[in-house]
């Protein structure tokens, strides 16, 4: 499970509970200028994830951590996948190379609206 927060021109993806442990990463903070949008997308959790480094992957059960596929670096934190949000980024030094975050949050609709509202004010 994760939390997405937008403040002070930054977007923070925070991993909570054991997810932070599996991923060996507690958070990813990127400038809003490197964020391209957010989408509620339960189907994204079912996509092939690629190679994990480091992370936990139990296909069909959970994917948590950093995964590489087709040249894209993605931060995953999905379990059931039902409340998945995809945050697309412009990969670069300020996103630690991540192209996107695919994470489950308590309220996907609110998270997506927060991110996209912040982007349209940019």
């Amino acid at each position: 499970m994760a939390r997405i927060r937008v403040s002070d021109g930054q977007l923070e993806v925070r991993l909570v509970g054991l997810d932070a442990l599996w991923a060996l990463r507690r958070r990813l903070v990127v400038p809003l200028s490197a964020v391209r949008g957010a989408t509620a997308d339960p189907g994204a959790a079912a996509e092939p994830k690629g190679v994990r480094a480091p992370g936990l992957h139990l296909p069909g059960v959970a994917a948590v951590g950093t995964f590489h596929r087709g040249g894209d670096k993605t931060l995953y934190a999905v379990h059931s996948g039902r409340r998945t949000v995809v945050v697309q980024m412009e990969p670069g030094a300020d996103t630690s190379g991540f192209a996107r975050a695919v994470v489950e949050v308590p309220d996907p609709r609110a998270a997506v609206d927060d991110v996209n509202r912040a982007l349209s004010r940019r």
Partner: protein
Amino acid sequence: MARPRSFDEAVVVDAATHCFTDLGYAATSVDDLVIATGLHRGSLYGAFGSKRGLFLAALARHTSSPREAPEDDERALDLLLVASLELAPHDDEVRDLVRDACGALGPTAVTVLGRRLLERAHLEDDLPEAEAPPVVPTGPTPTTPATRRA
């Protein structure tokens, strides 16, 4: 690294437009868009950033370019209806695009959108006669019926 795009953006945006106008914005899933456009999920996100980004691209494309076929006209109106109903109430950027599109439709915008809404509901044959504007008592004034602009 961003790979060069190997798809025709216009074709992709049109396919997405069909999803949005047939299903509505909220009910269109990214799975639907992946199937309709034939793109990989990653390419879709890479090109448009989000479902909203793709919707904005569709709205911009359909409300700015001159349209050749009447069904494109209907498609554009349907997209405007979806945008007005689902996104404009809480999305400033979409509201601006809808405002511009209504401005381009001119003074008949309300009639055109209302008529299209009832057409979509298969009620075009049951439409009440448009109310004639109050006639100024200086002989007959020709009133043009409000029809959809070709």
